[in-house]
């Protein structure tokens, strides 16, 4: 080996830069953590065993499963699908569809979820206590012309429906769609214009180009903020009690806390559950990001440096 010759510089063995500040910060933090842990152990009002007990109560688990988990999944499905549709409408060449999309976003982004859910829960049932599905203006036409049929195919009792979990999920989903629309729009706009051009040069129509080429690439930009939205939604399911839907995590735990006067353990229990659900979602997000990062120099193929201007992206 030529490395052994002394006249040419060889392997670098340099001393690292010292970071005394880090050690000081570590010491300070360790002291603070030790103080906190001591308080956990010595302050009996924390009452962690009781908190664990509350976490395992049947109503709490039911609230967690139905209100929080199903509520989050359901409203995010509606929110993501709806949001992408609204974003595509917003970017369409049809001015009417663009207008519809704008008004939707304006309305649902403008009203607080708490107010929206309360309104769905009581207001809608008061205004329209049943929904008839049939020919538009069929009833008016029928009474005008004296017909026996009123062109109604089936009827939904709004008062029965509006206080269900499903109504709450739809309300949260409609609200979420307005936010997801902006995220999806940013994602779609982030895809290089050359991609849609290449797709249309191959004879794909607009829909095919969007579905096969643009959206899969937009997902790379859409997924991280969507993870954020999902974790926010886990917490917003606590608003379901405004409907009122009470099979919901926060309502159930605080009810137990109030009834048994174990207020603080109940808070600890609900905090722990929210943190656990949030952590699971973060793991899921990591894998989703990996999946949609295909071909973009993700850690799985870092053997290859990305050439300049690769793929026109």
């Amino acid at each position, binding site marked *: 080996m030529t490395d052994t010759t002394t006249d040419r510089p060889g392997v670098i063995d340099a001393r690292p830069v010292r970071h005394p500040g880090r050690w000081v910060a570590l010491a300070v933090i360790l002291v603070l953590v030790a103080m906190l842990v001591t308080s956990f152990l010595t302050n009996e009002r924390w009452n962690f065993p009781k908190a664990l007990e509350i976490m395992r109560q049947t109503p709490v688990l039911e609230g967690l499963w139905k209100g929080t988990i199903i509520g989050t999944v359901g409203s995010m499905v509606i929110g993501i699908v709806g949001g992408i549709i609204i974003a595509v409408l917003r970017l369409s060449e049809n001015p009417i569809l663009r207008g519809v999309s704008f008004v939707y976003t304006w309305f649902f982004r403008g009203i607080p979820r708490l107010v929206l859910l309360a309104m769905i829960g009581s207001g809608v049932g008061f205004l329209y206590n049943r929904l008839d599905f049939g020919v538009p203006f069929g009833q008016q036409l029928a009474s005008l012309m004296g017909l026996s049929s009123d062109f109604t195919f089936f009827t939904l009792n709004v008062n029965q429906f509006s206080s269900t979990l499903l109504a709450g999920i739809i309300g949260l989903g409609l609200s979420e769609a307005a936010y997801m629309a902006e995220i999806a729009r940013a994602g779609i706009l982030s895809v290089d214009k050359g991609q849609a*051009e290449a797709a249309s040069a*191959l004879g794909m129509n607009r829909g095919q180009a969007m579905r096969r080429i643009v959206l899969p690439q937009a997902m790379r930009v859409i997924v991280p903020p969507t993870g954020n939205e999902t974790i926010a939604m886990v917490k917003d399911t606590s608003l379901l009690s405004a409907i009122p839907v009470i099979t919901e995590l926060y309502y159930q735990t605080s009810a137990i806390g109030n009834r048994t006067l174990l207020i603080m353990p109940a808070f600890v229990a609900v905090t722990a559950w929210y943190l656990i659900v949030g952590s699971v979602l973060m793991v899921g997000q990591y894998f989703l990001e990996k999946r949609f990062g295909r071909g973009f120099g993700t850690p799985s*193929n870092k053997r*290859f440096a990305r050439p300049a201007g690769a*793929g*026109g992206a």
Partner: protein
Amino acid sequence: MSDNSTTSTTAESSQPHERSRTGEDAPLVRAVNVLKSFHGNEVLKGIDLDVHRGEVVCLLGPSGSGKTTFLRCINQLEAIDGGRIWVDGDLVGYREEGGHLHHLTDKQVAAQRRDIGMVFQRFNLFPHMTALQNVMEAPVQVRGVDKKKARARALELLEQVGLGDKPDSYPAQLSGGQQQRVAIARALAMDPKLMLFDEPTSALDPELVGEVLLVMRELAKQGMTMIVVTHEMGFARDVADHVVFMDGGVVVEEGKPKDVISNPQHERTRTFLKRMRTEDDEARADAASTGTTTTTADV
């Protein structure tokens, strides 16, 4: 579309011309008095061009001369403001009925593009798909070809462009030259009757230009009709049947490559070619001084 679609256009276009027929000797591409402006800036000021079946036509000219815009007009990536373009007898972008032009629907436009292959300066491969998936995508999605058949054909095409060993690579794992060859295979997968190349080697490192030009030469040899916007004078001289020199949105000079490139009649052509030649020489000198071999320009 039928012959009668073009009859009444004769009166409208500035130059009278023969009705385009779909016979064997009719040009595959006929452009008459093509006009295009961007925000009041006239980019194409009346381009006429005939390209016959099996011909290779090179569009030369300085940047901003309108050659890329003209190419993009042929497969409707840009809409023209005036004139007419026919591909294989079909009026591009419009149908004529009762003496009026009607815009084609999205679907009809897509159908017209199907038979025209396009290769872009920046490759525009789909980065979330492997090379094989890039090539298979359009036949499966657009033509509804069976996946197995599309796959076999795609592998064949990748073999043809010299990438038979890289079907599962993502574009980001390929060099620029390899990406551009995949892009050529992707366009060929639709069995186009016409291939458009928009400066296919301009974004490539000099040592990668040769491999792409080689594939294009092969394609020309097989009788593919090609319109190539390029700065590669060597390619134009050897491969083109016809070269067109454009400047400022008009055709300045056209003819056999040996006439236009070796013996230009117009001052503007001469100046441009002289500058290109100097750059070629400089590139060669650079390559020589750094001790690398070069395949640029004159492959």
